[in-house]
């Protein structure tokens, strides 16, 4: 049995299975709630139940007082749900989050493009337009695979009737294997969306830095196309990392956009191009390109990161050493319950 838990004040919804704690479910579904000990003694994860039936579980009587229990407080790390529930947590409302509803769509493959030897561009046309924020993702149901797979949307919201995905072939991966080897134009697939907290914080001032690696160009592509369409005047700098020229895709698109828009700079970086006499651009990792371009000073910017975990990690370190901190760095990331229990991670950062 699965119930829906609505998290106020943001209105995000999570699915909680029977026996699963609210905290486990939230963290697994990418919804951050404050927590620390994870076993009912510190009370950091205290939340208020506004509606529905919740079992308080093993909360310590010193961490959750009787009077608080009477007032509908529970500890998210111990509490399980017995109906659909609405809770209020001590989290901030993101002014730029539009909270667009998640809906189910039927998608038909309209075009498959070879972007690079390992990445395909999949264009899907939807049965009706989807409202989403640039940077968000969809869940796609791929034949023969249990559960949906998440892919970021690469097209801007102005083209809501279609969805463009950049899919890297993961060796041994059943979903990306199917997409690369068997998917045909005209095939229909169910998908749902939009999801995620990765979008441009338009209400926050500051020039924009995008750092993308591999197929992680998809979200930044959507975000940048959207910003340019809307006539945003902030300076936008896109760093795109790839191994070599073959893997560097959509470079022509961004080169020509940069020629047309004086507020866009495009800086590709190849980390495996030592012997490529042809390559006149930056040689090295994408965070090194950012360091060089900004002379290790990133203060007063907003940075958006999308790519494989080692790239994200290196980029965060580079940005922080250049004086740009957690509140100014955004990325698509799933926090799992293991992050809290894993001794290898400290509690220093909330979301990076």
């Amino acid at each position, binding site marked *: 049995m699965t119930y829906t838990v609505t998290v106020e004040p943001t209105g995000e919804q999570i699915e909680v299975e029977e026996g699963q704690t609210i905290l486990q479910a939230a963290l697994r579904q990418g919804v951050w709630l404050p927590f620390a*000990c994870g076993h009912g003694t*510190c009370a950091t994860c205290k939340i208020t139940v506004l509606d529905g039936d919740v079992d308080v579980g093993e909360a310590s009587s010193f961490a959750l007082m009787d009077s608080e229990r009477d007032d509908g407080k529970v500890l998210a790390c111990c509490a399980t749900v017995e109906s659909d529930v609405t809770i209020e947590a001590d989290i901030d409302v993101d002014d730029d989050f539009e909270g667009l509803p998640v809906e189910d769509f039927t998608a038909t493959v309209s075009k498959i493009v070879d972007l690079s030897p390992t990445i395909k561009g999949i264009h899907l046309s939807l049965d009706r337009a989807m409202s989403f924020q640039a940077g968000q993702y969809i869940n796609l149901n791929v034949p023969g695979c249990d559960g949906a797979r998440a892919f970021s949307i690469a097209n801007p919201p102005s083209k809501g009737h279609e969805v463009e995905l950049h899919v890297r072939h993961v060796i041994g991966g059943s979903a990306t294997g199917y997409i690369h080897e068997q998917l045909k134009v005209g095939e229909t697939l169910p998908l749902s969306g939009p999801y995620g907290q990765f979008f441009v914080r338009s209400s926050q001032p500051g020039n924009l830095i995008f750092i993308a690696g591999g197929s992680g160009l998809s979200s930044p592509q959507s975000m940048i196309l959207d910003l340019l369409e809307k006539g945003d005047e902030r300076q936008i700098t896109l760093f795109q990392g790839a191994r070599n020229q073959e893997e560097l895709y959509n470079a022509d698109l961004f080169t020509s956009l940069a020629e047309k828009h004086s507020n866009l700079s495009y800086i590709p970086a190849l980390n495996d191009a030592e012997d490529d006499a042809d390559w006149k651009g930056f040689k090295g990792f994408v965070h090194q390109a950012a360091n060089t371009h900004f002379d290790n000073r990133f203060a007063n910017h907003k940075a958006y990161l999308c790519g494989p975990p080692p790239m994200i990690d290196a980029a965060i370190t580079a940005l922080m050493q250049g*004086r740009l901190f957690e509140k100014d760095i955004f990325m698509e990331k799933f926090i799992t319950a293991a992050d809290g229990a894993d*001794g290898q991670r400290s509690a220093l950062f909330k979301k990076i």
Partner: protein
Amino acid sequence: MTATKKLNLKQKYQYLTRDMDWEPSYQKKSDIFPQEDFEGIKIVDWDGWEDPFRLTMDAYWKYQAEKEKKLYAIFDAFAQNNGHQNISDGRYVNSLKLFLSGVSPLEYAAFQGYAKVGRQFSGAGARVACQMQAIDELRHSQTQQHAMSHYNKHFNGLHDAPLMHDRVWFLSVPKSFFDDARSAGPFEFLTAISFSFEYVLTNLLFVPFMSGAAYNGDMATVTFGFSAQSDEARHMTLGLEIIKFLLEQHEDNVPIVQKWIDKWFWRGFRLLSLVSMMMDYMLPNKVMSWQEAWEVYYEQSGGALFKDLERYGIRPPKYQDVANAAKEHISHQLWSTFYQYGQATNFHTWIPKKEELDWLAEKYPNSFDKYYRPRFEHWDALQKKGERFYNPTLPQLCQVCQVPVLFTETDDPTAFSHRDTVYKEERYHFCSEACCEIFDNEPEKYIQAWLPVHQIYQGNCGGPDLPSVLSDYYHFNLGEDNLDFSGSPDEKRWNEIKGIKPLDKDDVA
């Protein structure tokens, strides 16, 4: 503020803190907050402060009142049921004597410290956070004393802990630690206590004592531990917030904070050597060895923390490797010292029993049998001959940490680690390179240190002989509070409670 259906916690807290603050009109800010600049810390924007715990006063009183009602109900039940009779062994109470005279007064010192710095920040968020923690610390000091007061009716040495904290030679180690922090500037105080102590090292103090209580049947102290844990989570959050705030506010803060982390890691490590001894020697039922605790709570958790802090340009504490290498030695060296000076302690000392020596050998395969067991066996043989060894010479104390110069060199566990330096034509002595360096950074501060041994020799602690210092100045009841556990009134009373006949001398240990 945007209108929402009702205020969320953050907004409520904002009203309590920043929005009740005001800009002074007829006084200069620098006159109102005179301590904010002299440490060299640069704060660009106090609005960057993220409130670490959003708790309003009305909620605080309500929660804590209910918590304490529960806690005191358990203390009462513990007293009425003679809970002290259910502990694992009479020797266990000596850990409580150490805690009550060594740690509970620190909670009080922390209360004073937070109350003081809570006045010194021009940022209202930081002021309120410090004031809230001050109240927590005062409560902890009180509840700890109440948790342990029942033992004072049945065992010796617990009758005058605050006075002993101020005067007894080895209790100057914890006392001077907090005095050092409280006499520093407000930002150093928070780095020292909130970050280094409450965040980085707290699990090495709190967990051993509270788990030790649980393993040894001391329900009063265990319950105190549970009641304090929800407060400790807040304190740890403040520790993280202060360090992030300082590092993000200005890059010039980074080297200052690094120096404080280096200093306070080392000061904390030296202070915690008392815990190492408690874990390995004083708890009859062991929780884990000091070495294991250090590996879990410092090497692993601290390692992850300092890996994340690297992103701010902070490296691990300078003398971390020395502390890591010392994990196989410090508890044995310290207990050996307290055993020798057992005539001058407010708790009892003893030679570990055979199975305890075996446990130590198993937990410390590289060091115990080779360096320390022979020493205990030698003293044990003396004791059985009726020649229990007490060292009549007062030890040389370190000018900074005030621990006797008893620890050894990293590469040679048979050579004392001893450093000295000359400042204004006086020679000062230290237990380590790290303490010497702390002195060299601020010599004018540490030449004022009140070193108990020096004070005794100068005649400032009564006298003329050691027994009169111990009885008149330290308030020890000689022959009851001090000396070996074997043959003590505590032992006799415990044996009566348990109906144990006194052992023959040959069976002791």
